[in-house]
């Protein structure tokens, strides 16, 4: 609960999606970025906003730019993204 971001300070993220996509457990991810596994849970639930350092470490681990993982606005649903990304025939 402590350090929980205020409603208008929420940082949305896709950590859970990417983690499960890559078959990683919370513990695996936590070990890779050097935090406690519960901190990953807090991050995924949006109950904790990471430091810039941690955000960059997570982004580097997934090989993605940090803005692909974290956003001040909610991420669009995957189905909507897939439709937008579909090449026109």
């Amino acid at each position: 609960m402590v350090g929980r971001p205020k409603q208008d300070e929420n940082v949305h993220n896709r950590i859970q999606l990417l983690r499960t996509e890559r078959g990683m457990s919370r513990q695996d991810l936590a070990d890779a970025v050097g935090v406690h596994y519960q901190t990953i849970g807090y991050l995924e639930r949006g109950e904790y906003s990471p430091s810039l350092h941690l955000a960059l470490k997570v982004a580097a681990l997934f090989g993605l730019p940090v803005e692909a993982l974290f956003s001040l606005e909610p991420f669009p649903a995957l189905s909507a993204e897939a439709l937008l990304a579909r090449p026109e025939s």
Partner: protein
Amino acid sequence: MATAISDRVERWRPLPRRRMLVAMALTGWVVYVVGQAVDDPAASVAWPLGSLVGLLVMWGAWGVLRGAIRSMADLPDERLDERQIQVRDRSYLHAYRIVGGLGAALGIVTIGMDALDVRTVPTDWLQTTAFGLMFLMMVLPSCVVGWQETET
């Protein structure tokens, strides 16, 4: 990080159980302070004995609570991650405010009583207050973490 801390107290990790430990620790503290404040061995040994029991309850509950929160309130930065450091620091801020406020209030009452010649504050009462505040400062950070954190 705090992962090295023993998991023997796993069953005390759920929030309702942690809150029970917090209630036990603080009740023990209150019993200790009251027992010391009204200590009158000539009348009965119940007060000093009750005070001692209160102290032991506080100490025991605090010990289990520390395990249940992985000693998050007591570990140095090197053993915690960035979120845990925030949790620890915030718990100390709350504890400081509570103990500071309580100490200031007691100080005002004590000085006021002396200044108004209502009653001279006995030395052992001051001793009780000092030890009581020290014990509270010791257990309060863990109590704050135990009470507030959804997951430990």
